[in-house]
């Protein structure tokens, strides 16, 4: 959820998905986590040939299929929604699927998060003090992918910053996040902390800093987030 103050200017989920899609480069192998990240696939520019991996053993996963009557449980995304297999795709068992996650051939994974710290620490599986949480494939993907890209709202539903100086949530992996895509900004994790790469139109760097619980640094004029159109890709 966007910070109430900036709600009107914040990107919607579709726009966020477009921005993340634009980040993915030709010939990358990209793992798609559950939730918001699954929206990225339909927005990948047609000329970029990207191979999507789903943790449940799909290499060459296509977009989720909407509006099907008969769901085939044998071809679901990690989020358990019906998907297609692209031409040239294949199936592997779970050990081989996570071998890929840790192998070095996975160019990127797109994950949701509760918090990201300015040193790249990621929290996305357990609430503080909770007795249990859902790890799923996130720990392996975060530890193994070449680039961990996080896609999340800039603040919680209660307006609390999710970009922080030190995690207050139990970590999923340490020092792994490369870039964060929120509804307000795109930020890189650097040796000096969060670098503000892009801002949604109509906000200033200082606006973004106010809803972020870690120091940001930026060039004189960070670019506007490039979201081309609102139409479905």
């Amino acid at each position, binding site marked *: 959820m966007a910070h109430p103050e900036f709600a009107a200017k914040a990107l919607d989920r579709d726009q966020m998905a477009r921005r993340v899609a634009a980040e993915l480069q030709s010939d990358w192998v990209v793992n798609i986590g559950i939730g918001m990240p699954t929206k990225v696939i339909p927005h990948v520019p047609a000329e970029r040939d990207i191979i999507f991996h789903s943790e449940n053993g799909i290499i060459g996963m296509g977009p989720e299929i909407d509006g099907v009557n008969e769901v085939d449980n044998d071809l679901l995304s990690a989020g358990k929604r019906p998907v297609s297999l692209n031409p040239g795709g294949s*199936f592997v068992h779970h050990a081989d699927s996570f071998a890929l996650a840790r192998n070095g051939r996975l160019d990127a994974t797109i994950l949701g998060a509760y918090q990201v710290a300015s040193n790249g620490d990621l929290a996305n599986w357990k609430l503080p003090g909770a007795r*249990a949480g859902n790890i799923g494939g996130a720990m392996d993907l975060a530890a193994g992918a070449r680039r961990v890209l996080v896609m999340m709202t800039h603040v919680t539903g209660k307006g609390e910053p999710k970009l922080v100086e030190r995690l207050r949530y139990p970590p999923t992996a340490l020092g792994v996040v490369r870039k964060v895509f929120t509804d307000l900004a795109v930020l890189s994790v650097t040796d000096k902390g969060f670098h503000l790469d892009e801002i949604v139109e109509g906000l200033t760097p200082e606006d973004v800093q106010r809803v972020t619980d870690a120091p940001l640094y930026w060039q004189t004029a960070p670019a506007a987030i490039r979201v081309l159109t609102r139409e479905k890709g």
Partner: protein
Amino acid sequence: MKQRKANSVAEAVTGIKNGDVVLIGGFGRGGVPENLIEAVCERKLRDLTIVSNNAGTGHTGIARLLEEGCVRKMMCSFPLAAESIVFQELFARDAVELEVVPQGTLAERIRAGGAGLGGFLTPTGVGTDIAAGKQVLTVAGRDYLLETALRADAALIKAHRVDAVGNLTYRMAARNFNPIMAMAADHVVVEAHEEVPIGGLDPECIITPGIYVDRYCICPKP
């Protein structure tokens, strides 16, 4: 030839015992041996440890096993999905134990059990709650957790095709945990959609060699 075919689902699961550690294939609703699980429920077994990615959906399958009080402990990666209502209710009142394992580590622990290894070093979980009580070893400058192999008394497997030798193929992403679980248990029970004659499966495309299969039954795809 070893007689692997059971005449009914009920007959197929007679080798599962009270107190067994049981691997159950599937991810979400894909590749779950639902008929075998239901047959185990009918047997009213007790003190099972169930190893599966999820902790049951709705009131069928693993959820029913939990609901009928067959399960002492769950090992899974994603216990608190919206659909795992039975598990969450039992867990809230301490009526079931839980071990949460990262999904790739769960797969690899099973694979190690199936490969006769004692354990492995994984980068997954270093610096997290998952590392508690585990040895950290450094290889070529990188830290790894030592995770131990997981081997089970029994496995319930969902396959697509089977022959009388027990060779298996799977269907799309329903493959998931099934092939590695079939290697990691002392007693492996399979439900398959259809049976083919020996020689009816291409030797290049058999995913689970029949030597890992103790019993199978046929449950046509609905």
